[in-house]
């Protein structure tokens, strides 16, 4: 039997989009950050960032698997993850930015991980049991991710000169798109009504801001503005993403249909 078959179609569709958004977010940031493997600022950080990137890909895999069961159209997790054109990806616009320098990566991770944590918190008591179980596991790993990236944000933000200048510049590039992670999903009201997620997008956005406000305030860094165009928060991807897409499915496209 299809997982979630007891949900009304509107809720199931909204649930599928929520899972797709979460999975694509983790997939794209995981692949992006894995580009640091071998070239991170120091050996220990190289291992740490590579390990974090692997964690995100693990979360993406679990979310794609769950999505495959909910959608139940014969595609498995790999097919969903790789066999779509770039326009078919549904990650937040924040993750469309190229990897950039170390400050870009830290700024993007901080903005993404804090928003993702709010989203996971809102799913911790989800009425959709398979997602609730999975989120329980993901949250335990994300705790460490948040500790790691906050430590780096504080070091860059608190070191006058090049470290802080680069972080401020990175936030200037990324902050306008930061709120895209928690932008409203189509039909999210049905998810709230069915108890799948606790709180709508506006509420989640407010929680996120109250969480990052004190940290950014202490470092005298600006708060991200409200999202200018929420309707395109997860569509119309960048050239940087299209080139990442070409990288991450190059092997799979080289021999379609084979088992690796």
């Amino acid at each position, binding site marked *: 039997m299809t997982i979630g078959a007891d949900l009304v179609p509107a809720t199931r569709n909204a649930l599928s989009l929520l899972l797709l958004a979460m999975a694509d977010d983790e997939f794209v940031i995981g692949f992006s950050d894995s580009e640091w493997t071998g070239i991170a600022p*120091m*050996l*220990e*950080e190289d291992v740490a960032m590579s*390990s974090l990137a692997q964690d995100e890909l693990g979360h993406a895999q679990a979310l794609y698997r769950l999505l495959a069961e909910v959608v139940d159209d014969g595609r498995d997790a790999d097919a969903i993850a790789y066999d779509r054109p770039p326009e078919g990806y549904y990650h937040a616009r924040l993750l469309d930015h190229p990897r950039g320098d170390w400050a870009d990566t830290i700024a993007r991770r901080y903005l993404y991980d804090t928003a993702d944590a709010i989203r996971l918190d809102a799913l911790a008591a989800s009425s959709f049991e398979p997602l609730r179980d999975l989120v329980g596991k993901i949250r335990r790993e994300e705790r*460490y991710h948040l500790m790691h990236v906050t*430590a780096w944000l504080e*070091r860059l933000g608190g070191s006058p000169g090049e470290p802080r200048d680069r972080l401020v510049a990175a936030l200037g590039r990324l902050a306008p798109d930061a709120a895209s992670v928690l932008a409203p999903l189509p039909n999210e009201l049905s998810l709230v009504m069915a108890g799948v997620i606790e709180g709508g997008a506006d509420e989640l956005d407010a929680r996120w801001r109250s969480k990052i406000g004190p940290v950014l305030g202490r470092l005298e860094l600006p708060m991200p503005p409200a999202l200018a165009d929420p309707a395109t928060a997860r569509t119309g991807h960048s050239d940087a993403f299209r080139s990442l897409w070409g990288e991450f499915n190059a092997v799979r496209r080289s021999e379609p249909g084979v088992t690796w």
Partner: protein
Amino acid sequence: MGQPELQAWEVFRQEKEGDPMRHGGSVMAPDAELAVHYAREMFGRRQESVRLWVVRRADVHDLSDPDLLQPPLDRSFKKPGGYVMRDKLAAARERSGRPKPRGTAR
């Protein structure tokens, strides 16, 4: 401001509850917080540890003076080797009439 100075940190790990802390290796980090993060990545990310201790190498008191550790005179009489207990223990048991204890049950 230049780069913060990297320092060496020694990492001890416990494989399971009750085991002794054993030296695992070292990491380089600018401060204790990142040292703990990196220790976690190097010695704990595959669930191979239940506890880590991270110590700044500079805080370790080193003793490697050969006059103190490897004195040149013969000290073999301080070693327990050559003094075989087994037969004496067996004889003592014989005298006391108590059997050899098995396991921990009494």
